[in-house]
Structure formats: C-alpha cells, structure tokens
C-alpha cells in the first residue's frame, strides 16, 4: 500500500499543537510506517507539494501570507484538517478581532513605520484572525488548546481507517 502523504503547517498559533503532535512519542514510529511527512515545520521542505492526502493546519488565518497559503494548500490537499482551537475557532489570536487592526499594531509598535500595517517584508495583518472554516471548506476538526496527543492519535487512526465521525464526546471539548 502506498504511504499516505501528510503535510502540517503553522499559521497564527503558538506551535503548541505541533509540540502535542511530537508528544505522540513512540507512536510516531508506527505512524511513520503508514505516512510520509511531505511538508512541515519539522522537515526541511520549502515548497508546499502537489497531491497531498492530508494537511493538518495549526493556527488561525491572521495575515495575507496565511490566506494565500491556505488557498494553495486547499487546492493541493485532499483532506484539510483544522488542527487545534486556533484553527477551529480563532481562539487566542482572535482576541484582537474586536479592535481596529491599526490600533492593535500601534499599541505594540508605536508611531511611524509599523510592520504588517501594509504589505511589505512582513505580510499585511488581516482585519481579523479567522478560523479556517470561515474561509475554505474544512474536512476535519481536532479540538483543544493544544489537542492532547491521545486525541490526535485517535483522530489519525480513525481517519486512516476511513471511519467517521472522527471525534466524539469529550474529544470535542474546546480549550
């Protein structure tokens, strides 16, 4: 059986979901027999490849670069999964959403040139940090901040076995 091509990516998040993924510990060895990681912060590949089976997206969509990448990933991935609360609900990055974008940036960087205010070396900050499903169709959701490793494992096992629903009951708890 050919290996499942898996990508992971990290937008407006804290990397906690990826840390939790690494907490799969020895189960990573078992996973590596079934999947190939073709793109991820934990492997050194620069371009998001074509024909990916499964992409786990950590983080909310907070700037123009995230938004462009998300569209690209959606086109190149069969199953797109919101990985962790920031990707599922907006979570902590969305706390800036009630405030005007410029006010948020100025309160951090002060007067004058502000990175992210306009498109430049730093991507432009979007007016609001949004959950993935508000922007593109999403095929699965892994709740939690961060999702516990056991929950990630249950999700992946059910997904690889072609079962549904992917998570139920306590595994749907936010936070």
């Amino acid at each position, binding site marked *: 059986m050919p290996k499942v091509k898996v990508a992971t990516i990290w937008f407006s998040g804290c990397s906690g979901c990826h840390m939790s993924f690494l907490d799969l510990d020895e189960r990573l060895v078992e996973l590596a027999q079934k999947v190939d990681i073709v793109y991820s912060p934990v492997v050194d590949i620069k371009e998001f490849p074509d024909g990916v089976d499964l992409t786990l997206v950590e983080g909310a969509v907070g700037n123009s670069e995230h938004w462009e990448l998300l569209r690209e990933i959606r086109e190149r991935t069969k199953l797109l999964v*919101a990985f962790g*609360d920031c990707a*599922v*609900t*907006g*979570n*902590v990055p*969305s*706390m800036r*959403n*009630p*405030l005007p974008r410029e006010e948020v940036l100025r309160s951090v960087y002060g007067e004058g040139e502000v990175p992210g205010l306009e498109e430049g070396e730093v991507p432009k900050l979007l007016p*609001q940090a*949004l*959950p993935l*499903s*508000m922007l593109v169709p*999403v095929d699965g*959701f892994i709740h939690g*901040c961060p999702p516990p490793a056991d929950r990630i494992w249950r999700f992946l096992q059910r997904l690889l076995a072609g079962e549904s*629903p992917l*998570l*139920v*009951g*306590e*595994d*749907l*708890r*936010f*936070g």
Partner: protein
Amino acid sequence: MIHLEIDGREVTARPGQTILEVAEEAGVRIPTLCYLSGLSPRGSCRICLVEVANWNGKLVPACATPVQEGMRVVATSPRLTELRRRVLELLFAERNHICAICVSNGHCELQDLACELGLEAVRVPYRFPGLTLDASHGKFVYDPNRCVLCGRCVRACSEVEGAMTWGFSGRGIHTTVEPDLGGPWGSSETCTECGKCVQACPVGALVERGKATAEQEKEPQLLAQITERRPRA
C-alpha cells in the same frame, strides 16, 4: 394522573409537571442551559426543544411546557440534535469564548453541551463583539464576553436572594445583563455579595475573583438545595 408518551415510552405525570420534569423521572435525557432546578423556568435558550408528534411536530421548550393528556413527545431525534446544535453555534458565535484562557475551562455547561451535541465547528460567522470586563466588585468578576444570556443570575438574584441586582438591559443582539441598571458591579447598592448568581451562572461569565484558568468550579445545585428547604406557599 396524566398519561403521555416520551420517546415511545408510556409515562404518567402529575398535573402541572413540565415535560422536562417527567422526562427526568423517566430517565430520558434532555439537554438544558437556561433551566436551573430551584429557579422558575424561562424557556429562552431553546436547547431543550422537543417535538410533540401529535401537534404536527410542533417544537416546544421542555422546561417550560406543562404535560397534557395524550401528548406524544419526541425528545431524541437527529432533527432535534441538529436544531440544538444550531442554537449552540449561535451562542458560541455571539460572544468571545476563548476556552483556553477561561477560568471555567473544563467546568462549563456550554463546553459540556458542545461535547454532548457533537459540535465540530461553528458554521455561522463569529461576531467578535467588543465588550468590557467588569472587575470592580471585591469578590466577583463579570465578563460579558462569556455570557450566554440565560438569565440564571437574574432569577437567582431576584427569586432566591431577593436582591434584584441583576437585570436585562438593551434589546436583541445588544442585550446584556447588568447590575443595578448598568454597572459597575462594585458600586451596586443592592448586591448583598451572596454569590448565588456566580453559582447559578453556567459559564465563565460570573466568577470568583482571583481564579486562574480552569480553576472555577461551581455548585449550581445549591439554588435548589436552598429553595427546597423553604416553606411552600
């Protein structure tokens, strides 16, 4: 005695009992949010909606609908789960629920309902309203970002404590609960600092001061324990 059916089971009830009370006695689970034993029912959150099959499938709130002879109640069905989940999504989208940093994380009736009703993701746009936290009270904190407008605080304060500090203010999407017709809570002349509203609140909107993330556990059953001991009129 009144005879009726709940999820195909024949049950008997006393006149004046609600569908919810009878279902509970019969061991049929109906999820609730604005309902709290010990307080008058309000029927406002719509989480406890059930169908009455012989009323053309009419939807009624189980907590506020008295049973009637011959009623055939459907309390469990895919349609009801979907409707209840929709209600839940609207509640999540209406305010700013950031569970990861909430004092009630892990002890929250809204979170519990999301698990019970299988809420994967909210399908309506989040509103992200700009609401200000009120930390002016010496013992408690009010964070409207997490309020679901269930009114349990309003009823606990007026019906059980008799202080009538909490009330609804504004209309429609602009509705909030406010102490003394508009805070700050700390300057309230009516609040007795009893904390019944905090215990009644199902979420992290009314909490004890000084609680950190996930530390706030509540005992909403206290309200019924108090009222059960009171002489009935």
